[in-house]
């Protein structure tokens, strides 16, 4: 569209110029600029992309995690989420997932399991065969030396170990029988004889001491009872005190609540105009926190926000914010299955789903952080005016809204905008924009006013640049000052109108109005 509008003027004014070459140049430039655009677009967005290389350590940790039998049963998304939370990048996670199925851990683990089972079966049968003790003693020693060899001799290892244990057990039993028990018996007999002797001695003076001991015991028991009962009394007293205190605090709380409600009512009635005394506010806050203590613990759902019936509650919060009383009441109601009574049936469906979206009455206002970019992007603004469709403001550098005065082209563009999905349109528009730029630069000097008019229009708004552009204009005016030119230009615009695929109303009307402006300008300059 822009290119097509460019080509005809070339063919008319620049006769020696080959229109074909003119057309190819923009396309070549277009291709280069599309690439440049793509590069340009990718390099700023590369800030928002992971540029870290894959960390092998993290990948290996992830592989270990993913190989764990418990993890293998969980859904993939939770595995990914866990790794993401640990700080792994997408590439690292993908690499770990790629590596995990490659291992065959099952093959190596089955062999030792089988052999150990065999060893256990054989061992009991072997114990019966291994009667003599001494023959197996060198065998355990031999088994120790065989520890180095692993899988094959495992069963024999177990065999030998069990045999050794059995033998040693038998040996100690025999030893005990023969040597230790007679000694024990004699020692016991000694002790018993001594005791009998002692008892005969002590029978003489038992009575007094016994009585005294009995009396002391009784006294002690009585004292203990007394102490116990007094303690119980104390406990009950303190409990009573506590109950009373709680009651009082509850009453206080209720009092404050009532105060609050009355304040709220006052507010509603508009009496105080928000001027609630500070002390009350403090009290109020204290009372609210006092209220909420009991409910902090009562909260079942860990997630304090998502309190919908099927709400998510996976994570544990560091500390749950105490919820208002009525909130807990409503939650309890819902959990019981009751529905709060204040809900109405509302039909909020659109009455006319095909209602056309209205035209904006105001142009978008510049954002405070965008204003600084106005000066630098003036040329872009001008060039983007060439593109007649509304997608001119898709390019990052084009801060079209930096202009305070609402430009006519912007308004028209907003109306026109038909936003098709992504690539096709964006690519096409970026092509257009990139088309415009180099072409603009290459033919600004010799070109007649209609293309340059929007420049002048902008120039009038921006005093700095207007001087330069007005100079250009006068040159151009001198070159092409005739009614014929106007007619030709009108023809050109009509051609461009019919020829331009993406060109919609805005472009042609834009050009028309630029023509009008040009005529006005003509008259002005002529004067």
């Amino acid at each position, binding site marked *: 569209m822009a290119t097509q509008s460019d080509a005809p003027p070339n063919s008319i004014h620049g006769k020696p110029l080959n229109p074909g070459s003119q057309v190819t140049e923009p396309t070549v430039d277009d291709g280069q600029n599309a690439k440049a655009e793509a590069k340009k677009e990718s390099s700023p967005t590369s800030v928002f992309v992971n540029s870290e290389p894959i960390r092998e350590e993290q990948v290996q940790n992830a592989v270990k995690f993913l190989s764990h039998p418990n993890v293998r049963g969980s859904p993939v998304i939770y595995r990914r989420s866990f790794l993401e939370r640990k700080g792994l990048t997408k590439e690292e996670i993908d690499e770990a997932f790629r590596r995990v199925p490659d291992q065959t851990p099952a093959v190596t683990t089955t062999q030792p399991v089988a052999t150990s089972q065999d060893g256990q079966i054989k061992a009991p049968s072997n114990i019966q065969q291994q009667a003599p003790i001494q023959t197996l003693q060198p065998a355990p020693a031999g088994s120790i030396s065989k520890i180095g060899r692993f899988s094959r001799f495992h069963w024999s290892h177990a065999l030998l170990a069990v045999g050794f244990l059995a033998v040693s057990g038998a040996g100690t039993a025999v030893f005990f029988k023969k040597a230790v028990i007679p000694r024990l018996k004699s020692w016991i007999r000694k002790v018993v004889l001594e005791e009998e002797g002692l008892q005969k001695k002590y029978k003489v003076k038992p009575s007094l001491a016994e009585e005294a001991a009995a009396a002391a015991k009784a006294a002690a028991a009585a004292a203990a009872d007394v102490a116990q009962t007094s303690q119980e009394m104390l406990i009950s007293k303190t409990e009573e005190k506590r109950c009373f205190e709680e009651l009082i605090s509850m009453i206080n709380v209720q009092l404050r609540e009532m105060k609050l409600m009355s304040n709220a009512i006052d507010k509603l009635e508009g009496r105080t105009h928000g001027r609630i005394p500070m002390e009350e506010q403090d009290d109020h806050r204290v009372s609210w926190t006092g209220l909420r203590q009991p409910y902090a613990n009562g909260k079942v759902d860990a997630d304090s926000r998502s309190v919908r019936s099927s709400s998510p509650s996976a994570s544990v919060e560091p500390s749950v914010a105490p919820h208002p009383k009525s909130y807990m009441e409503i939650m309890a109601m819902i959990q019981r299955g009751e529905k709060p009574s204040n809900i109405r049936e509302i039909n909020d469906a659109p009455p*006319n789903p095909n209602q056309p979206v209205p035209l904006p009455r105001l142009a978008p206002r510049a954002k405070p952080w965008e204003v600084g970019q106005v000066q630098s992007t003036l040329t872009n603004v001008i060039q983007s005016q060439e593109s007649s469709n509304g997608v001119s403001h898709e390019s990052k550098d084009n801060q079209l809204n930096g202009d305070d005065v609402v430009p006519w082209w912007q308004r028209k563009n907003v109306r026109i905008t038909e936003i098709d999905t992504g690539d096709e349109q964006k690519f096409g528009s970026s092509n257009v924009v990139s088309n415009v730029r180099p072409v603009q630069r290459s033919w600004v000097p010799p070109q007649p006013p209609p293309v340059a008019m929007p420049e002048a229009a902008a120039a009038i708004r921006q005093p700095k640049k207007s001087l330069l552009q007005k100079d250009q204009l006068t040159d151009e005016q001198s070159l092409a000052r005739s009614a014929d030119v106007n007619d030709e230009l009108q023809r050109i615009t009509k051609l461009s109108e019919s020829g331009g695929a993406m060109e919609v109303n805005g472009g042609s009307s834009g050009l028309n109005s630029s023509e009008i402006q040009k005529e006005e300008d003509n008259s002005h300059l002529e004067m």
Partner: protein
Amino acid sequence: MASSKELRERGTPFKIKLITTRSPPPNPNLRRDMPVFKTPFNGYSVKFSPFYESQLAVATSQNFGILGNGRLHVLQLNPTITEITSFDTADGVYDLCWSESHDSLLIAAVADGSLKIYDLSLPPTSNPIRSLHEHAREAHGVDFNTVRKDSFLSASWDDTVKLWTVDRPTSVRTFKEHAYCVYSAAWNPRHADVFASASGDCTVRIWDVREPGSTMILPAHEFEILSCDWNKYDDCIIATASVDKSIKVWDVRNYRVPVAVLNGHGYAVRKVKFSPHRMSAIASCSYDMTVCLWDYMVEDALIGRYDHHTEFAVGVDMSVLVEGLLASTGWDELVYVWQHGMDPRAP
């Protein structure tokens, strides 16, 4: 409109205390008395209009948003806070955003998973003009693109983010990678195709709509992340607010370590918003019922604290058109609008 030089000066960070003599030049459209507005339902979100200085909208839900209807209020600040109009919804409204291209369009994120588009230039009986219902679960956040001004995002508890345009009845794209609820999505203020999403799976993901999947994953917190927002003056800085009571500021170019960690809230931080006027100023609201103002480049980052709410403070916004104008709403069914440096409750 101020010259660019003046705005650049405003962009440099400086510390101001709560009681300060410095105040922005009085805007003739706004009066100083800012009484509170009482909503019948619990407030969930408040947003200033990008077109009119004295207009803002509030999203509210009945019964704390657990179960009940919702209402979207459009308020006028002149001469006092009054309601221009309101729209009822069958389910609670969790968030709203104003269109950046049309001065009369509003988009509401409804708890039944739908997005409703309202047109203020039409009578209430013709509203909503669209109901976009694709999310399988509650729609929790909406954000409108400020660069290209043609599209908006919706963040939902069905773990997805969807991209929409006003004229299309179906979504343009669905971004499904999070493992848990997505609470918020925010467009980058300088790059038309880049946005960030904050999720309950404890990560923030950065996406480019031209790419098939997310381009960056920031494991920003150990707990659920409820909100994120980009720095308007530095397109690589992003702030995240989490259930762990902290706000962390990250630079995506070096995202392993946060630029700043802002502690001070007593409970989960529900919403975070970068100032449109000051480069390093952040406003936040929390379940500790306060709205705080921070300057993350300063050692002692907390520069203002407002505890006017008597319930969870759930929504906060800073006006793009009026410097220093803040609005907040909470479960106490009140909406406050005030100038930073003033007491929100004072007339």
